[in-house]
C-alpha cells in the first residue's frame, strides 16, 4: 500500500490541505480531490498543455507535477483566474467574444497560459506565439486566440 501524505497550499487564493497518495499528480488532486474539473488531461505527458495551471504565477503542466511537491506554494486553476469572486478573467471574456473557443478542450490551459502572458506584459507577437506553443489547439487555428490576447491587453490598458 502506498503511503498517504498531507499537502497544504494555496488553491485559487484559499489555503487548503489534502491527504493524498504519495504518487498522486497535481492534476488528479485538482480534479478528483478538489473537484475542480476545469483542468483537463490530454496526453498526460507534458506535451499538449491541456492541464496547464499556474504554480507561483508561472504556467506548468499539472500532469507532471507531484501533488506532494506543491507544499506551501500557490496554485491557480482556470476556475480561479478571475479572482475569488468567480468572475471571468479579461482574457477568458475576450476568448468568448472573439470566438477563440471551439470544442473547448484546450481552453482551460490556453486561458491559464494566456493570462500568464498578459501578466508578464508580453505583447510581441512572435514571443506570444512561442510562449503559447505548448498549448495545442486542433480547432481554432490560433488566430482568434491571439486576437483575444490583444483585445484583453487593450481592454486592461483602458
Amino acid at each position: 500500500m502506498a503511503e498517504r501524505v498531507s499537502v497544504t497550499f494555496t488553491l485559487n487564493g484559499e489555503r487548503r490541505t489534502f491527504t493524498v497518495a504519495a504518487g498522486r499528480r497535481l492534476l488528479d488532486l485538482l480534479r478528483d480531490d478538489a473537484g475542480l474539473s476545469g483542468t483537463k488531461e490530454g496526453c498526460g505527458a507534458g506535451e499538449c498543455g491541456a492541464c496547464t495551471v499556474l504554480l507561483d504565477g508561472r504556467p506548468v503542466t499539472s500532469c507532471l507535477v507531484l501533488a506532494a511537491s506543491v507544499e506551501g506554494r500557490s496554485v491557480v486553476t482556470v476556475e480561479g483566474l478571475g479572482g475569488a469572486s468567480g468572475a471571468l478573467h479579461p482574457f477568458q471574456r475576450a476568448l468568448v467574444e472573439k470566438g477563440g473557443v471551439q470544442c473547448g478542450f484546450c481552453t482551460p490551459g490556453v486561458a491559464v497560459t494566456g493570462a500568464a502572458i498578459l501578466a508578464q506584459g508580453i505583447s510581441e507577437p512572435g514571443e506570444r506565439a512561442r510562449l503559447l506553443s505548448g498549448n495545442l489547439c486542433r480547432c481554432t487555428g490560433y488566430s482568434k486566440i491571439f486576437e483575444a490576447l490583444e483585445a484583453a491587453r487593450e481592454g486592461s490598458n483602458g
Partner: protein
Amino acid sequence: MDLPVQDVLRPRSLREALRVLADHPGARPVAGGTDLVVQLRDGRRQAELLVDLSRVGLDGITETDRGIAIGAGTTMDVIATHRAVRTHFPALATAASQVGAWPIQCRATLGGNLANASPAADTAPALLVAGAAVTVASARGQSQLPLEELFVGPGRTSLRSNELIVSVLLPVSRTGAGRRLVERFVKVGPRREQIISVVCMAGRVVVAADGRLELVRLAFGSVAPTPVRARATERLLERRVLDDRLRQEALGVVQEDVKPIDDVRAPASYRRLAVATLLDRFLAEVARG
C-alpha cells in the same frame, strides 16, 4: 492515475536530503519531474521512494570571481532570461529557451536535464563548450568534476545513488582586446517548439585580432551515446585562420567525431548530414564576424 511509488519524502535542506539518500539506497530524487514523472508513468523507471527536491534550495544563479554558478534546481525559464548568462554564455541561454515549451521550461531544472543523461539533452552541448564543471555532494562532502565525466551512456551518469548535483560552474574568461567571441546553439527537429533534438550543436570560438581561431569548442547532442565534444575538429581548427579550404576539411573531420545511430527520430545518415550542415553554418558565421 497515481504514479506507482510507495512514498515521497520532502527534505527542507541539502543536508537533510543527502542524509535521506544515504539512508535509503533505493530512493530517487525528483526535481521538476518533467523526465521522471513520464518515465515512472510509462514504466521505463521504477522508484519505491521519491525524494522531492523542491524545498532543498538548489535554485538560483550567482556570479562569483570564478564564474557563474547555476544551482541544479534552477529552471530553464530563469536561465534563458538571466542577464549574465545571456552575455557570457548565449548558447546556454538559447538552449534553455528551447527545452520544451513554456510550461515545461518553468519546471525543467538544469540538474534534472544533466542527471537524466539523455544524449539529446539540450543544455549539455552548450555547457560542454562553456567548459562547465559540476559540483556533486553526498553526506560525506562535496567534489567537483568536469561535465564530460558525468555522462557515461544513454540515461547513465557517474553519480552514485546517494549523490546530488548541487550546481554547475561556468568559468568566465575575459575575451580581451581585439578578440571576438562567437557562441551559438542550434537545434534541428521537425517543429520549432517543444521537440526533442534530432541533432543539436553548440559552438564557442574566440577569434584573435590577427584572424586566428584562438579557442575552438564544438559539441553535439543526439549523435553519440552521450553529448560529445568534437575534439578532432577543434584540434584541426585551433590556431589557424579560417578559410574555405579549412572549412571544407573541418566538415570531413567532424564526421569522425560523431557516432550517430538510426532511431525513430532519424536515420544516422541524416544526422551526419545535419552535423556537417550545422558546423558549416556556424563556421560561416565565425568567418563573417
